């Protein structure tokens, strides 16, 4: 059997999603962003909503999300993506509008914007990458940094007396009446990737129902910022991050 025989459509089990561009990704090897980008691209493609989807990219490592998924994009100022998304969705109600934000962007400088977008029940999707650190600026403490976790601005570990406590955003916003679906997922195993994809698809489907904001948190690794190998970062995430940020659905108004 030669290669040409093997490379037949019925034998293909995995391929690059149609909506992922050919641009070389700038993410570090082992980073969760690339996987989450792939899932979003697959969901948009499978739902057939490329022409009606508008993405809002944040400030942080994923500022260049617009280079990788083949849809129209708006690049927001730090933390402000939910404000852009709110107006975009209200002015273009037939569009699917999502923000893609990290924890520095969403849980620190952008807390007002995310909380009020949730409270107003904006019919948007929010993808929240929580890796407990500022990746792009070089590994500083984020609001989601765990107690004791070392970062470049908590070199001796996060001390709550000095740095306060980690914020658990998904649980906070679950108390707001404007949220429809809130879930926390990860992408560190094949099974987790499949569950995360289902969650992202559900969020996009809910945004068509005009029942409020859907929020998918992805507990993620930043192996460069954490100064670990990708494999060690995954283990550390399971052992430490999952305790503070347990995986699973938090709210679903249609259940």
């Amino acid at each position, binding site marked *: 059997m030669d290669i040409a025989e093997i490379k037949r459509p019925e034998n293909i089990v995995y391929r690059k999603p149609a909506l992922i561009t050919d641009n070389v990704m700038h993410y570090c090897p082992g980073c969760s962003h690339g996987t989450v980008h792939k899932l979003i691209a697959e969901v948009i493609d499978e739902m057939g909503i*490329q022409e009606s989807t508008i993405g809002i990219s944040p400030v942080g490592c994923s500022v260049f999300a*617009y280079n990788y998924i083949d849809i129209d994009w708006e690049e927001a100022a730090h933390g402000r993506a939910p404000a*852009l998304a709110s107006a975009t969705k209200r002015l273009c109600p037939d569009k699917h509008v999502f923000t893609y934000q990290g924890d520095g962007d969403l849980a620190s400088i952008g807390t007002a914007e995310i909380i*009020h977008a949730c409270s107003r029940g904006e019919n948007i999707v929010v993808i929240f990458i929580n890796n407990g650190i500022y990746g792009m600026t070089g590994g500083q403490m984020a609001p989601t940094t765990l107690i004791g976790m070392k970062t470049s601005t908590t070199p001796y570990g996060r001390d709550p007396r000095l740095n306060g406590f980690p914020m658990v955003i998904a649980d906070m916003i679950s108390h707001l009446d404007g949220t429809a679906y809130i879930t926390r997922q990860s992408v560190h195993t094949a099974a987790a990737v499949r569950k995360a994809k289902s969650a992202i698809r559900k969020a996009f489907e809910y945004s068509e129902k005009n029942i409020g904001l859907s929020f998918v948190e992805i507990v993620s690794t930043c192996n460069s910022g954490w100064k670990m190998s990708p494999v060690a970062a995954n283990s550390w995430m399971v052992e430490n991050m999952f305790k503070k940020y347990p995986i699973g659905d938090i709210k679903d108004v249609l259940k």
Partner: protein
Amino acid sequence: MAEKILMKGNEAIAISAIRNGVDGYFGYPITPQSEVMETLMKEKPWETSGMVVLQAESETSAVNMIYGGACCGKKVMTSSSSPGVSLMCEGISYMAGAELPCVIVDVMRGGPGLGTIQPSQSDYDMIVKGGGHGDFHNIVIAPASAQDMYDFVDWGFDLAFRYRNPVIILADGIIGQMMEKVEMHPVKPRRTAEDILRDAPWATTGKTAGRPRNIITSLSLDSDIQEVFNQKLSRKYAEIEAKEVKYIEYLTEDAEYLFVAFGCASRICEAAVDELRQDGIKAGLLRPVTLYPYPFTRVSELSARMKSVMSIELNLGQMVTDVRLAVEGRCPVGFYGRQGGNIFTPEEIVDAFKKFNNLK
């Protein structure tokens, strides 16, 4: 004859937005301009033209909402007053950097800080010289009446879309609160989806087959690319400076003394010119209607035959810097102003004029 309605300048902004086919207003309450959003909410334009009106959680959010709306090619606007506009400067800079059209109304009050809620022209430098970080210009237009407030919304959007640039309507608490008769021009419908595809092919309208994805961003990490963009902006500003300067002159033909004043100060100054003329002193007035682009050339031309030029402002003397630049030492340049929300009378201006010019 067109209908005339008695209304506040702030109300004129709101009514004009609805009648001129604005797609969305996003704002946050602040004195002395809260009537803009109050009027819009009372009028419920979402039931008629389909215009979206939303009260944001902060000025920061409001300006970023219009950033999002402008990305989609929509006609979007906000309004605020000085402290709120400080917060909006981040978004204004991003919109300048992303080359997005929008209209922002600043109904100025006294400052700095929380300052007063009374009228002032304290934001001239912030808005005309800055309006956020980076190397850019806002187009700045200065109304002097409730009618101007009505007319400048449409003019502002015209400029904003022609140049893909933020336009600031720099008003003040007097213009916002004062009631005057306002002539209603014919209603303009909101643009259709097809209009937007034709007029704003750059907008985030959803990527369709046959065109590359539209990305609205102000980011470039490469110095050479950023410099090329900065120089592109520079050419745009040069075109704006060449084509869009607007000013109004009052009794300047034979004038020996020139006042320069914008907004409400220009109307008080007009009365001062009349008083001086009754005393036989040939005074005249130039009112810059566009503050960026500024009428440097005309002020310069006029100053060549003046005994003096005075800038009259409701602040500590901000525009006077531009007047000096225009006059270039051809004659003495003076300044008179009131601050903190206090307003000068024509008599005060006359007294200050006589003192500056050593006249009795």
